[in-house]
């Protein structure tokens, strides 16, 4: 009780409240700008935490984290470009909705789903953090491999028009991620004696080039023709009835996000894809996925914001960061003299409570911040298209370069942009390529680790009940069209008999 009181008094401090509001708003803006992501936003704020107090530092970082993960959805919906890698799956249904003239509703759903996911995950975190951390520990390489394989099935989901081309794009994505150092032997692969290639292809330059730059090329090429649709509609919250109808989707996606957040090293980008794959498997509207179906948008956005809270579980209770962003936050906490780890929950209860409460506040700020700011972003889209596209090019270049200060990343952006344009021109969907690229390292590394641990035998993978369960779900998902076809045939033949 004392701990709760002192946590509340930390929360009520004006500098902490100011920090969380400012952090959330700045986070939304940075997240919405393609190329600038959560990691950059948090890194920029890191020096500030040296001068701010403990409470304000934590509030600032949490605000930025939540805001930036949500912000990525704005550009995903409005300009077909995920502002951050975490929103890659949001593009799939968000942009088609906007094209249909429902940009306002799409923003409303994204905001609602993000806030819901974040808040639900915070509640779960507050109640069950140490327990979740223990469950998370049960996930070793074998289980990670099974999870990655399941996530890969969403390639099928997103390539509805042409499965063969979708699979080809997915394989290409898996392959591009192979460039660089072999994760087990350290050998260099496909570096062509170029030093910069030996460090591999960065996610941000690749993603930004593939989506943002190719979109610019696409619109430039289209200008002589029909031109882009005019997107204009104000922010619209989904009605209560709609909310009730899709509540189970919100709930499930948030739970998936929370749970994946607790697994160190998987991250929000994969989480939103896993959630999308599961939504596609189970949603009543599964046939409409990829054409602007709110369920798809909800699956991605609720999950990626639930990850922000979920990722705090291993960070706080194990002292192991859940993703690169929480790694920076862990660093900031350590500098403040806090030692995350199993004993934090006993020794420093008021700080833990404060973090939970602050996450709650940050998610509420995020909701209202989104409400306030998305009209602003919609208005930006009414800029003359050449101006808007030129601005995107500048942002993309400046943003990508600012991450590592490496000119090579700019070359990657350009090549990925040209590649993305050519793929689109030939009718290949881009999303499977990103899915392959994001999941490739996790799948490869965990498969090979698992084989090392089982002395080269794949049978050992089935000794893990968790992995076997995931393999089974994957197999069912893949065989579903066959099975349902079979069932239909059996069913229809039996009705004929009657």
């Amino acid at each position, binding site marked *: 009780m004392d701990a709760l009181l002192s946590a509340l008094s930390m929360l009520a401090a004006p500098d902490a409240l100011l920090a969380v509001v400012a952090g959330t708003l700045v986070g939304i803006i940075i997240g919405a700008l393609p190329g600038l992501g959560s990691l950059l936003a948090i890194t920029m704020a890191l020096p500030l935490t040296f*001068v701010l107090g403990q409470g304000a530092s934590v509030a600032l970082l949490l605000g930025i984290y939540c805001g930036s993960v949500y912000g990525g959805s704005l550009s995903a919906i409005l300009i077909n470009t995920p502002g951050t890698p975490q929103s890659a799956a949001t593009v799939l249904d968000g942009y088609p909705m906007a094209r249909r003239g429902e940009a306002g509703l799409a923003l409303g759903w994204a905001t609602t789903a993000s806030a819901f996911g974040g808040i639900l995950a915070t509640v779960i975190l507050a109640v069950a953090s140490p327990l979740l951390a223990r469950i998370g520990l049960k996930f070793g390489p074998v289980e990670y491999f099974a999870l990655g394989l399941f996530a890969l099935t969403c390639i099928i989901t997103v390539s509805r028009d042409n499965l063969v081309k979708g699979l080809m794009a997915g394989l290409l994505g898996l392959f591009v991620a192979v460039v660089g150092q072999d994760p087990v032997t350290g050998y260099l692969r496909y570096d062509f004696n170029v030093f910069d290639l*030996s460090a591999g292809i960065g996610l941000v330059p690749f993603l930004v080039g593939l989506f943002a730059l190719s979109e610019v090329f696409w619109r430039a090429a289209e200008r002589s023709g029909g031109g882009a649709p005019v997107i204009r509609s104000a922010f619209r919250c989904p009605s209560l009835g709609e909310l009730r109808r899709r509540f189970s989707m919100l709930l499930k996606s948030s739970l998936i996000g929370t749970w994946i957040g607790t697994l160190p090293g998987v991250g929000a980008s994969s989480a939103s894809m896993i959630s999308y794959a599961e939504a596609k498997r189970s949603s009543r509207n599964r046939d409409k996925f990829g054409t602007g179906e709110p369920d798809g948008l909800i699956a991605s956005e609720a999950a990626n914001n639930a990850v922000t809270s979920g990722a705090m579980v291993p960070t706080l209770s194990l002292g192991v960061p859940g993703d690169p962003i929480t*790694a920076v936050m862990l660093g*900031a906490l350590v500098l403040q003299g806090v030692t995350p780890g199993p004993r934090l929950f006993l020794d420093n209860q008021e700080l833990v409570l404060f973090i939970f409460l602050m996450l709650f506040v940050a998610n509420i700020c995020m909701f209202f911040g989104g409400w306030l700011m998305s009209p602003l972003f919609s208005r930006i889209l009414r800029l003359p298209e050449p101006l808007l596209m030129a601005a995107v090019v500048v942002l993309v270049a400046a943003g990508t*370069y600012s991450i*590592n200060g490496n*000119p090579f990343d700019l070359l990657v952006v350009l090549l990925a942009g040209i590649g993305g344009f050519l793929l689109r021109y030939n009718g290949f969907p881009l999303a499977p390529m990103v899915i392959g690229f994001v999941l490739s390292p996790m799948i490869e590394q965990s498969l090979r680790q698992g084989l090392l641990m089982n002395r080269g035998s794949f049978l050992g993978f089935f000794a893990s009940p968790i992995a076997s369960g995931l393999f089974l779900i994957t197999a069912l998902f893949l065989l579903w069209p066959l099975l349902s076809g079979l069932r239909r045939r059996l069913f229809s033949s039996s009705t004929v008999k009657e």
Partner: protein
Amino acid sequence: MTTTTRKTTFSRSLLGLALSVLPLLAAPAWAADYPSRPITEIVPYPAGGSTDLAGRAVANAMGEVLGAKVVVDNRSGGGGSVGMAALARARADGYTIGVAPVGTIANQPHMHRTPYNAESFDYLCQFYYAPQVLAVKPGSEFKTLKDVVDYAKAHPGELTYGTPGPGTLPHLQIEQFKRLAGADITHVPFAGDGPGLTALMGGHIDLYFALPNTVTDRDLRAVAVFSEEPIAALPDLKTAIQQGYDMTAAVAGGLVAPKGVPQDVRDQLAAACERATESEELNTVLGRVGLDAAYLGPRAFQDLVLSTSETNGELIRDVLKGGGH
């Protein structure tokens, strides 16, 4: 503080353009008025990690001693080699220095074709050090190093050890230990210490080379510390030497500059680093990330890196390029 950060980001975006013109404009460094402008300190790892935190703390301390601002510039990627390459290519005028973990500077050139090697730098000082401890998974029956070795000898290849990646310092150190003890333990590399330690805590792997504070903070157990003497943080833990295995292993790092910095500027930087290592703030920060402030002069640090490079170069050729684990 906000404005400086923004400025850094902004100026970085312009850097691409500026780089091509810079060599023409920059006047030669005159040691008499050194330092007359801010010094850039390249950290070859992302913000927030232990190398970055140590790097930021030493940048502050150096700045105070030198009376100039020392700005941290994170250039991550390629196991630290991207940042080291940028440093090696920088102008040797004393206005660009970098944090060099021993593993990054000594091992990476043997792993792939880096545009630098251990000889490409002027060594300024070592400022941090920490001995490795061999941690075992929760519930493990191993109490001593001998238990581990005996089991590994009886069941070759059955035990597994995790590392933050192939060719990293802990990987080569354990390979070295395996040779010394004549034991066969399987290497399972992870993408960094985070996933690796989680796998140890979850009992998916058996052993991990970690810093002493990793063990104390996370209630893990260790079977040996690889230092000359027992350490204060874990007073009951015996050294490998005490247990009959004559080997030490540690992580360490210091400051380096591109080769060819004028001698007087170099002396000034080395002297500043020695005083910075005594700074209380640096000691506190290092302590929090599990490192000790430990100074070595330019010569001694260079010798340490070069000898590590030589030993590990051989190990990398045998272990990684020979195809074994």
